[in-house]
Structures are given as structure tokens and as C-alpha cells.
């Protein structure tokens, strides 16, 4: 349906208020070609309205609407690039779903469009009522495009009928459906075998579990309707929640376009989401001192209340994120600590060391709970497996070990020498960076090898995004690569930092992993936008190489640790963290709460000084 209103020109509310505008005649809007609608009004009526319209403001024009049943006098205030039929039918769907039946009917009357024509409505109702013969008959009327689709749709319907007959224990009729109808509709023999196997189910509960089906009184009929949607042209039956889907897409687009995306998109639908520059981490809030040697790992607890750090001085320290004091110092390792992993409940940490052991520490008590011996060389990496009682570790001894927290080995796998491990959040994917130049992906549930990603030089560090879609690798030649794991291709390259033979860890940061951050040998922290690859900031706060950087959504901050024995915290000002003074727009107030330099070396906390600087882009 073409928009013939174009001839009348662009109608806007402002124009409507302009008394001299000739476009107020409104005859443009009524000249639309609508299916079976009343013909355009004769000029007499519009002429009469000309003078009246010219004298009116838009408010009184609108006041004419409510009571008017005659579509011919509807005045559309503006042009739109989208077809009126589609927009109105989406509105109808929303009104219907939200229960505004009066308005729904009124809108149908006033616009002349219906959400679904009669056959489709009947089809929908008969599916939901389970009247299968009616359903079969009406299938041809609802606009299915091809015979293949017709068969597929019929198969779905017959399958539902079959299952319902089984549920009602009418086995003979179910068998008839299977033999006479289902078998002719598909070539998928396995499917047919599975369905015939269901005939053997002794009870209805067994049937439900075996078929993954929740019964005729459950949601299964809705599910069938939704699957049928794929075969029916969207014009006949509007896809469910279509307007909500479109809103979601718009929001996703705004988030993609947001340069400094560190805040969730919660501004609603009236304004576009855009994180302002001020919320991006750009000020060094605190510099945590307490280690006696280079700090080689730092990690936030999942609840954002603590930060754990591991160092070359053989200890781990737990820092509180509310007052930045040292909560615990864990002594016990015989050699440097290079990796720490927090349990999902934020109660334990596991630390891995070159003394070939891992140790489990209780963060609440401050005690060492368990020592895990089993690796014959340095343990390089460890990650928890989704629960609070199992974790996986990899070492340079060609071993990957799955441990139980009581100290026993659950499984031991031989592998290439492990430099780094990553586990997806649903624990189905395991990535292993080996000592050479490859990253191997394993299915963690079956421990089978899936594929490898090849880099040109040695992989120094690796990080996996939360949705397990992207993986970034830091290489020995100073490049930072991003791989898309769905297509297994290299999609982006980030540059600007320096990296050589020392391990400098990279991480995803920001809201929904939209940023990529890594340290550098020149002591700067680099942050890029993941989608555009644009360098967003270079943050200076360390005097030596930055080894690790990490981000926490809950703590809303970046943390970096360095060879200069300190850890720097860079908060994103979201207004949420409780320790932040409430003046989110005044960056200088952080000096207030940190003149607490202790005489001993327990913890020295200092605020933003002139030694820090940032370059923002």
C-alpha cells in the first residue's frame, strides 16, 4: 500500500498550529487506498473544513477525533516512512496483549484494519482449543507459502494431536494418526521412531518427560502456535510480541553505538541510551599498597565487595572494596602466586603458584582450608566450574586437573602445557592457551576436543566474554586479537600498547563486555571500545609494567596491578557503589577520605594525585 499522503506534504504538529498552512486540509490523509474502505470524500466536505481548519489550532482538531466514528475524517498529523497498516496492526497486537479490549475494538473500527482476518483468528482459536480437524481444514486459508511448509506445519499439528491422544490414553486412535498421517508428512525416520516409542510409555508422567511436553492443558498448544509462526507469512499472522522485539532491537542498537558503555541501558524508551564521558573510569581512586613484591594477579569477588591479589612475595591479600583496607593476608605458598579464582558465592579463593600447588582459602575466616598437590610443575591457571565445590586447574606439566574442594582429584587430563584457561559461564566450553601459539577449545561436559585457533606468535594471555561469543588474546608481539567463537575467525585487532615476553593480561570490561582493556609495559592502561576498536583512554597510575587488569560490574570499577607493587582502582561513576561520596559530578572530592596513611605498612591508601593522568579519546 503506497502512502499517497506524500502529495499533501509533510504534516507535523507544528504545521497544524500554523494557521496559514494550506496543508491542514486533511484530504491527503483520506485519499489513501485502503482495502474495502469508503471512497475519498468529495471536495465539498473538505472545502467546508478548509475554513474551519484554518482557524483552528491543533488542539481543537484533535478534539474532533474522539466521538467520530467516520474514518473518512481522520486527520493524520504526520507522515511516516512505515506503512500505516503495519503500524496499526502492531498497535493492535500490543493493545490486545495488554488487555485493552475496548481500545482494541475502537482502533480496529477507526482505522479499518484488523489484527487478524477471520480465517487466521479461527485457526488460532481452533489450535488453542484442540479442534484438530478444523485446524487441518483451515490450514490452507491462512497463507502458508509452499507445500513443504504446509507439510511441516501439518506435522507439528498432527504431532500435538498424537501426543494429546496418548495423554488421553486413546492409544488406538493415536496409532492411526501416526501411521496414516504423521508418517506421510516427514522423511525424518528417527523422529517417527521416537514418536512410536512414546506409545510404550506406561503413564502420562512418563509420556510428558519422554516427549519434553507439558500436556494439553499446559503451554504446549501455545508452543505449537509459536512454532507454526515460522511457516505462516508474517502478514497474515503478526509474529508474537513484535513491537517489543523491535524495541529490543532499537535498544541493542543504541548500546552498540554507545562509545563508553559502562552503564546498563535503563533510561527507558524516551531518550536514546548514551553513557556520558563522565561515567567512564578516568580517575585513579585508590592506590593499594601492601605487597612486598610485584603483584601478579588481581580479581574482584563476584559480589564486588572484595578484591583478591596474588604476588611474587608468595602471599595473597584480600582487600575490602568499601574502605580499601586489608581484610586478610594469606601466607602459605612456597613460591610466587600467579593466579587467583573466586568461588561463585564469593566465599573462597583458590590460588595457583609456581610451588606446584593450589590452595583454597576461606575469605570469611581468613584461614587456609586445603592444599591441592598433583601438578608436577608450575600451576598456571585455575577457574571454578560454576558451583562452589569444583574447580579446574592447568599447569606446565601437561596436565589439566578437575578438583573437588575437599582435596581430591575428580579428573585428570593430559593436555599441552597450559598457559591460560578460560571457562564459559555455563561451563560448557573450556579454552586452553598452550605454550606454543594455539588456543584449543574443548567441550567441558564431554571433555572432547572441538577446534583450535591459531595465532602467529605465542599467546601470553586470554579472556573469554561472558556470553562465550568472543575471546581476546594478547600476543608476544604486542598485538591484541579478538576472535568470534561462533565463526572461529579473527574479527578485530586492538593496538597501541606494548607487550613482549612478559605476561600482560587482557580483559573484557564495561557493561555487557563492550570494552576491552589491557595493561602495557609502559605502565599505562589501555581501554578500547570492543565494537569499533577505537582507543578510548590511556590511564596512567602505575610507574612500572601493568600485569593484570580486571573489571567488575558490581563494584563498577577497573583494577590494575603492577610490578611497582601496587594495585590501582579506577571506578566508573554509576552512583551505585556505597563507598563513593554522592557527588558524582565532582571528581575532586575523592581526596577527602584518604588521608589515612598508617604508620605500619598494613595498607596505605592514597587518592588521586598529580602522578596520575589520563588521555581520553
Amino acid at each position, binding site marked *: 500500500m503506497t502512502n499517497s499522503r506524500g502529495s499533501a506534504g509533510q504534516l507535523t504538529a507544528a504545521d497544524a498550529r500554523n494557521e496559514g498552512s494550506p496543508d491542514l486540509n486533511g484530504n491527503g490523509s483520506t485519499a489513501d487506498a485502503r482495502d474495502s474502505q469508503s471512497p475519498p470524500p468529495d471536495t465539498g466536505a473538505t472545502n467546508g473544513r478548509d475554513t474551519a481548519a484554518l482557524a483552528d489550532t491543533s488542539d481543537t482538531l484533535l478534539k474532533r477525533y474522539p466521538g467520530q466514528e467516520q474514518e473518512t475524517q481522520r486527520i493524520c498529523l504526520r507522515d511516516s516512512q512505515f506503512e500505516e497498516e503495519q503500524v496499526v496492526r502492531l498497535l493492535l497486537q500490543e493493545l490486545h496483549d495488554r488487555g485493552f479490549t475496548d481500545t482494541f475494538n475502537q482502533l480496529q473500527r477507526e482505522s479499518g484494519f484488523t489484527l487478524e482476518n477471520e480465517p487466521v483468528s479461527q485457526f488460532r482459536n481452533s489450535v488453542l482449543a484442540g479442534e484438530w480437524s478444523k485446524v487441518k481444514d483451515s490450514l490452507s486459508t491462512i497463507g502458508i507459502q509452499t507445500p513443504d511448509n504446509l507439510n511441516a506445519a501439518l506435522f507439528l499439528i498432527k504431532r500435538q494431536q498424537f501426543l494429546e491422544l496418548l495423554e488421553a490414553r486413546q492409544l488406538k486412535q493415536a496409532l492411526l494418526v501416526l501411521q496414516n498421517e504423521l508418517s506421510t508428512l516427514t522423511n525424518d525416520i528417527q523422529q517417527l521412531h521416537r514418536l512410536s516409542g512414546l506409545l510404550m510409555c506406561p503413564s502420562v508422567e512418563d509420556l510428558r518427560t519422554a516427549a519434553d511436553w507439558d500436556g494439553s492443558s499446559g503451554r504446549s498448544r501455545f508452543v505449537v502456535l509459536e512454532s507454526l509462526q515460522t511457516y505462516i507469512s508474517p502478514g497474515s499472522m503478526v509474529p508474537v510480541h513484535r513491537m517489543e522485539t523491535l524495541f529490543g532491537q532499537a535498544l541493542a542498537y543504541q548500546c552498540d553505538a554507545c562509545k563508553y558503555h559502562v552503564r546498563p541501558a535503563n533510561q527507558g524508551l524516551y531518550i536514546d541510551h548514551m553513557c556520558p564521558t563522565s561515567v567512564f573510569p578516568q580517575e585513579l581512586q585508590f592506590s593499594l599498597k601492601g605487597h612486598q613484591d610485584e603483584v601478579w594477579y588481581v580479581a574482584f569477588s563476584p559480589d564486588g565487595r572484595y578484591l583478591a591479589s596474588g604476588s611474587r612475595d608468595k602471599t595473597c591479600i584480600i582487600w575490602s572494596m568499601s574502605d580499601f583496607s586489608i581484610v586478610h593476608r594469606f601466607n602459605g605458598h612456597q613460591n610466587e602466586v600467579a593466579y587467583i579464582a573466586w568461588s561463585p558465592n564469593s566465599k573462597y579463593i583458590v590460588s595457583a603458584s609456581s610451588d606446584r600447588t593450589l590452595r583454597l582459602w576461606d575469605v570469611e575466616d581468613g584461614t587456609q582450608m586445603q592444599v591441592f598437590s598433583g601438578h608436577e610443575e608450575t600451576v598456571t591457571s585455575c577457574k571454578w566450574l560454576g558451583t562452589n565445590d569444583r574447580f579446574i586447574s592447568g599447569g606446565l606439566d601437561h596436565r589439566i586437573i578437575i578438583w573437588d574442594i575437599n582435596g581430591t582429584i575428580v579428573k585428570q587430563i593430559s593436555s599441552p602445557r597450559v598457559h591460560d584457561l578460560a571457562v564459559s559461564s555455563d561451563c560448557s566450553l573450556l579454552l586452553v592457551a598452550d*605454550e606454543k601459539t594455539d588456543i584449543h577449545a574443548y567441550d567441558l561436559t564431554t571433555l572432547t576436543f572441538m577446534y583450535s585457533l591459531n595465532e602467529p606468535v605465542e599467546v601470553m594471555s586470554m579472556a573469554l566474554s561472558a556470553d562465550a561469543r568472543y575471546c581476546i588474546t594478547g600476543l608476544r608481539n604486542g598485538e591484541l586479537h579478538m576472535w568470534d567463537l561462533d565463526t572461529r575467525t579473527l574479527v578485530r585487532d586492538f593496538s597501541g600498547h606494548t607487550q613482549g615476553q*612478559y605476561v600482560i593480561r587482557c580483559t573484557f570490561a564495561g557493561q555487557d563486555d563492550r570494552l576491552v582493556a589491557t595493561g602495557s609495559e609502559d605502565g599505562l592502561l589501555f581501554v578500547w571500545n570492543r565494537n569499533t576498536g577505537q582507543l578510548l583512554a590511556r590511564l596512567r597510575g602505575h610507574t612500572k*609494567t601493568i600485569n593484570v587488569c580486571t573489571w567488575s560490574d558490581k563494584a563498577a570499577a577497573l583494577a590494575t596491578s603492577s610490578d611497582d607493587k601496587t594495585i590501582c582502582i579506577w571506578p566508573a561513576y554509576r552512583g551505585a557503589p556505597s563507598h563513593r561520596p554522592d557527588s558524582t559530578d565532582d571528581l575532586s572530592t575523592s581526596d577527602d577520605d584518604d588521608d589515612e596513611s598508617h604508620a605500619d605498612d598494613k595498607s596505605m591508601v592514597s587518592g588521586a594525585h598529580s602522578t596520575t593522568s589520563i588521555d581520553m579519546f
Partner: protein
Amino acid sequence: MGYMHQTFLDGKGVFACRDCHTHFTLRKSIESRQYSGQYGRAVLLSDIVNVRVGEPDKRSMTTGMHIVQDIYCMRCNKYVGWTYVRAFEPEQKFKEGKFILERELIYDISRECIRDSSDWIE
């Protein structure tokens, strides 16, 4: 000086730290055996792994004045030798960028018995 992954060498004649068995070099990297260090005989190497360097130091050696950096085992932090940063005599320039390991402090891991210096004879 940052975290480094320990490297493992494959090949004939891997020389490693006597205390912690960390690999340092392969036999084929040895360029000369006619050197001496604080503990006795030492070898000159072109390549080395798993060591950290210390601060540059100006030292007078039998062959002249040099700037050297002591090297330490990555795992146990023990002194194992040094590397030449700069040689002041023109004839000694070839040593720049090369490494010295003291034979007392390393051993050939393919041979079990490590005390006798006659092990060095192939």
C-alpha cells in the same frame, strides 16, 4: 620484572638450574667453554631462557672493562651467571648480548651424575 611463563626446551642436551631444574639452554647454543666466573669454569651462550637480569654493573674483567648484568634463575632466584651489555674493547664486542652460565651452578639434565666436571667432555 613481570610475570613470565616458564619455558621448556626440547632437544639434545638441555642444561638446567642445579637447584630447581629450570631449563636454561640447549647444548648447541654453547659457543665457547673458555670462560671463568666466580665459581670456576663458565660457558658462553647465544640463547637462554627462564632467567631474569639484574642491574647493569661496570666490571673490570680479564679481557677488559665491560658493562654486565647478573642473571638469576627465574624460579629460585639464584645467581647463575651474567650477560654482557657492553664491551669497551673493540675485540670483545662480539660478546655483547650473549650470556655466561657458571658450570658449577647448572647441569645437563640428560645425565644423572652431575658433580664431575668431566661430564662436559662429549
